[in-house]
C-alpha cells in the first residue's frame, strides 16, 4: 500500500498542472451553463416538480463531472500507456491493480471541485437557492455518482490509442450530454429519445440529483443503473488488463 498516496497526489498534480485539461474541464460546463441560462424556458417548471434553473444547475454539474472525468482518462491515459510509463510503474513496488484504481481516484478528486464550481455559478448567476444541508447532500451525491464517468474515462484510455481517444471522448461528452438530457430536459425531447435516455448514465446521474431536490428522495433505479455502468466498465478494464498482463505488455 506504501506509496499509493504519493502516486495519487502525483496524478492529481499532473492533471491540475495541465492547462489544456483545466481549460476544457472548467470552460465547457461554465460556458455551457452561462449560455443555457439565457434560454427562454428559464423560470419554467421541469417535469412538474423542479424549477428549470435548478434542473439546469444539476445537469451542468453532471456535465462538468462528465467532462472532467472523461478528459482525466481518455487520451491522456492512452498516451501515457503507449509511452511505456504505465509499464514502468509495474516494476515498482506498487501492486498491479493500483494503477487503475489510482487513476479512477484521481479522476474523482478532480471531479469534486468542478461540481462545486458549477454550484457556485448556480448560486451566483443561476438563481438557485437551496438550504445549506441540501447543498451539502447534493454535492456529495453528484460527486459519488460521477464514479461511472471516472471509470468510463479510464475505460476509453485503456481501449483505444491516443489519436482515437480524443474524438471518442469528445463524442461521448456530447452524446451523453445531449441524449442524457443534460442540455435540455428529457421530458422536452421526442418520445423515442426519452426511452433511450433511460439507458444512459448521464441521465441517471442528473436524475438522482433532481430526485434529491424535488422530494422524491433517493433514486434507487438511478443508483442501480449507475452501479451497473460502473461494474460493467470496471469489469471490462479488468478484462483488458488481464489480457495485457498475460502478454506481458501491461
Amino acid at each position, binding site marked *: 500500500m506504501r506509496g499509493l498516496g504519493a502516486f495519487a497526489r502525483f496524478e492529481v498534480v499532473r492533471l491540475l498542472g495541465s492547462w489544456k485539461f483545466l481549460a476544457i474541464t472548467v470552460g465547457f460546463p461554465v460556458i455551457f451553463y452561462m449560455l443555457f441560462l439565457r434560454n427562454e424556458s428559464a423560470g419554467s417548471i421541469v417535469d412538474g416538480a423542479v424549477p428549470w434553473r435548478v434542473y439546469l444547475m444539476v445537469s451542468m454539474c453532471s456535465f462538468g463531472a462528465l467532462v472532467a472525468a472523461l478528459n482525466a482518462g481518455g487520451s491522456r491515459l492512452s498516451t501515457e500507456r503507449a509511452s511505456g510509463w504505465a509499464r514502468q510503474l509495474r*516494476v*515498482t513496488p506498487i501492486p498491479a491493480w493500483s494503477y487503475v484504481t489510482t487513476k479512477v481516484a484521481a479522476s474523482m478528486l478532480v471531479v469534486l471541485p468542478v461540481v462545486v464550481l458549477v454550484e457556485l455559478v448556480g448560486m451566483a448567476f443561476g438563481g438557485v437557492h437551496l438550504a445549506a444541508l441540501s447543498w451539502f447532500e447534493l454535492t456529495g451525491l453528484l460527486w459519488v455518482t460521477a464514479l461511472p464517468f471516472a471509470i468510463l474515462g479510464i475505460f476509453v484510455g485503456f481501449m483505444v490509442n491516443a489519436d482515437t481517444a480524443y474524438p471518442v471522448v469528445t463524442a461521448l461528452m456530447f452524446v451523453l450530454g445531449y441524449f442524457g438530457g443534460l442540455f435540455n430536459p428529457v421530458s422536452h425531447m421526442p418520445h423515442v429519445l426519452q426511452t433511450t435516455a433511460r439507458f444512459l448514465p448521464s441521465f441517471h446521474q442528473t436524475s438522482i440529483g433532481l430526485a434529491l431536490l424535488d422530494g422524491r428522495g433517493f433514486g434507487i433505479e438511478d443508483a442501480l443503473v449507475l452501479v451497473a455502468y460502473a461494474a460493467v466498465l470496471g469489469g471490462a478494464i479488468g478484462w483488458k488488463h488481464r489480457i495485457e498482463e498475460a502478454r506481458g505488455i501491461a
Partner: protein
Amino acid sequence: MSAMIGPSKTCRTMTTVHSDTVPDAGGSSLCSDAVDREPALRFDGVVRRYGDRVALDHLTLHVARGETVALLGPNGAGKSTTISLFLGLLRHDAGSVQVLGMSPRQAVADGRVGAMLQTGSGSGLPPGVRVATALQMVRQLYRRPASFDLTVERAGIGSLLSRPTHRLSGGQAQRVRFALAIAGDPELVFLDEPTAAMDVESRRSFWRMMRQFGREGRTIVFATHHMQEADEIADRVVVINHGQVVANGPGATLKAAVAVRQLRFVTGHPDEDLLDRLEGVTDVVVRGTGVALNSLDADATIRALVHSGVAFRDLEVTGAGLEDAFVALTGGDRTPDGGGTT
C-alpha cells in the same frame, strides 16, 4: 550492500585478452567461484510460449550477486522475454524462475529490483511533470529509497531536474529513466536495450554510470544486440538465440571460442598430417583439392604454409571478429521479429 562486491569482478580482466591469444582454461575459471555463490537470479529450464511460438526453450541461466551480465542475441532471440519473466511481467509456462531467492513479483513488490524497459517510440516517462517531481514520486513508492541527491548524482541528471519530462532528448530521457530505475536503491537492475536511443557519446557516459553502479555491488543484467557493448561492460556474456543459451562466458572467452579464423585454399594433393601440424591450426577439413583450415593464429599459419612449400592458390581468410563470433554462435540468423519485443 558494498560487501557484495564479488570476485566475479576479476572476470573483467578477461576481456582485455586479444583475440589472437588463446585464453587458458584457468583464465575462464576465474568466474567460477562467483557462479558457485547463491545466485541473485535463477532460471531453470524455463519455457515460455506465445501461442504456438516458443520464445524460451528450456532456458537455464544463473546470475551471481554482484555480477554484470549481458544478454546478447538478435531481435526475437528471447532477451526481452527473459527480462520480463525475471520482473514478473510475464509468467512462464514451465521451469522455475527465482529472483533473490523469491518469486519475481515478490522481489519487485519488496522494492529490491529496478528496471529500464524497452519503450518503443515512447519516452517511458510520465508526461506533464518535471523530472524532479517524477523522481520524487517514484522514490516514495519504495520502502528504502536511495536519497534523492544520490540518485540524481548516480544518473547524472542534476541539470535536468527542472525540465518537463516531454522536453528531453532521447539520451536525456534515457538517463532519467535510469534514475527512476535505481530510485529505490535496488540490489538488482535489469536494462532492456538501454542505449537503443542514444548517440555514441551518450552511450559512453551511460555505461560509465552503469559501471560505477555495478562497482557498488549491484547485480546488473542488460540485454543488447551490440556485441561491443556486451563485451566491454559485462563480466559475462550470455548469448541467446531461439530461446536457448548458445554460449555463456566472459566476453573474451566467447570471442576466443570463435576467434578461430578459417583459411580456405586449393592445392593439388592435400597432406592432412602436414597441414594439421602447421602453426595455429586446430582443425583440417579436406574436400577433394579444397582445404579448410581453422586457425587460432591466421598470420602464423599462413607463414608456416608458405614455408612448408605446399603449392596453394585462391587463399581466402574468413572470420572472426566479435561480430563473426556472434554470427557463428547464433547460426548467423537474425530473425526479423518485429523489433525485439520478445
